[in-house]
């Protein structure tokens, strides 16, 4: 009888599959739409865009970075990744406590190309070296905050159904290029981008498994 109980319990556990997606880079979001039709992401820069925007940096420097902001404080709307999926393939109802948290690494994200590199320490991402401060100064960066509350939600998942939570939101994109000078000689150059989430909307959906 005890054995049967254990087998049934195991079967029950196996019939529930939870698919949790880790915080994903904004680059892989399902959709990012700019309010301004002429604005675009760094990943969509063509070779001509790079070359034209490097040319915009006319003033040289003894030592350090010169930054050109191409798209500044551009509002965007996005659909991010599926935050969570729970499948109940079993024959009985299950209860789940879902725990989600909007983390710092989601609210402020960055990317870079060419000679501009990223420095990742734990959850904190920065542009490597002095260019981080130069970029933040050129886009008037100021850190945003939220209540930092983790979000626990109990949900009932009926047999042969799945639950998923997706987030949509609004944010701001800044991107551009930079050139590094050493004794007034341009020694490296690259592209940079910041993505700041301002609002997140949660959508929860339960559907039958087909």
């Amino acid at each position, binding site marked *: 009888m005890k054995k049967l109980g254990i087998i049934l319990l195991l079967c029950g556990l196996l019939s529930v599959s939870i698919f949790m997606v880790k915080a994903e880079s904004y680059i892989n979001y399902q959709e990012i739409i700019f309010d301004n039709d002429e604005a675009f992401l760094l990943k969509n820069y063509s070779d001509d865009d790079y070359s034209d925007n490097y040319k915009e940096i006319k003033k040289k420097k003894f030592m350090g970075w010169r930054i050109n902001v191409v798209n500044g404080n551009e509002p965007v709307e996005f659909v991010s990744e599926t935050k969570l999926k729970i499948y109940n393939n079993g024959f009985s109802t299950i*209860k789940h*406590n879902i725990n*989600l948290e*909007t983390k*710092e690494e989601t*609210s402020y994200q960055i990317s870079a190309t060419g000679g501009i590199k990223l420095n990742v320490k734990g959850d904190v991402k920065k542009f490597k070296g002095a260019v981080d401060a130069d970029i933040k100064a050129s886009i008037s960066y*100021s*850190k*945003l*905050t*939220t*209540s*930092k*509350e*983790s*979000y*626990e*939600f*109990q*949900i*009932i998942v*009926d047999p042969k159904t799945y639950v998923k939570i997706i987030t*949509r939101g609004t944010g701001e994109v800044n991107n551009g290029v930079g050139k590094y000078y050493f004794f007034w000689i341009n020694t490296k150059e690259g592209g940079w981008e910041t993505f*700041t*989430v*301002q*609002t*997140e*909307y*949660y*959508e*929860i*959906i*339960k*559907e039958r498994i087909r």
Partner: protein
Amino acid sequence: MKRVILIIIGLYLVIGTILVSTYKENSKKINYFTLKQNYSRLMLEEELLVVSLFIDRDDSFITEKSMIDSALLRNDESEIAVAITSVKLSDEDIQYKDKSYYLYTLNIDFTEVYVTNMDLVIEECYLDILYNNEELISLYIGDVALSFRDEINSDNLDFVHMTGIVNVIDGKKYLVGICLKLDNLTLQTITINDIYTNSDLLKFDLNNSFISNEAIVDNPASTDLFGEYNHLGDKEEGVIYFDDSYYYVIPVVYQEMYQKIYRFPLTIEYRLYNQDYKLEIDDYLFFDEFIRLDDYVDEIREYQYFYPESN
């Protein structure tokens, strides 16, 4: 030359004295503040309430868990003893009025006074914390509405889609509607008699629902859904003879003024076989915002603690 050196030394001494005295002054004082929140929660299975505290030091007794003797939530009319189970540093370098603050989260536990099916509403609530050094701090945290439940069930009715509709009103974002799709788990007709949450700050107006074939997820303007609708005031009683193939967008009505409320539970009262039932939905985060604290000065309560002068 001798005079120049003497002037430089003199300047050093004056600047040094100013710096030392300023540092001493700062080390005697702690600046901290709270941001008003509307806490509306369904408390299940030893769930915690999380309160945020912004403070300009990370080495004070205020955020030292081992220094906490006791705590309570209170207003002028009621109070409840709570336990602070942890104090966590959640973020740092948060700017407010040109100063840098740490963000700590205080996890509040209710297990000592847990009562099943208790609804606790403490408007204009303070969190009082008594420390081992006999210091007491009172933090204004906002309105608290907690519903303690053992479990939630969905025997006859369940939701299959839920999201919020958010509009910008006077430059700030507020929830103006909720989009729900419900699933009738019976073969009988179910009538929705009421939808409400445990906070008195907002109500749901069933009479003026917008019905759609598709989920409404892109935050349309309230006027596109409800026409010239006033989201402030009282709501009238109403029913929805619902069809579970449609999405219902129900307008939110605020009692006195627009309120920032991101997360709350829902109770759906419905009628089946001439009997009344309830579907309770755990507190759901309809939306979340990342804000500049300087834009929310009116919602912030600032405090200062001065260390006693040593003899």
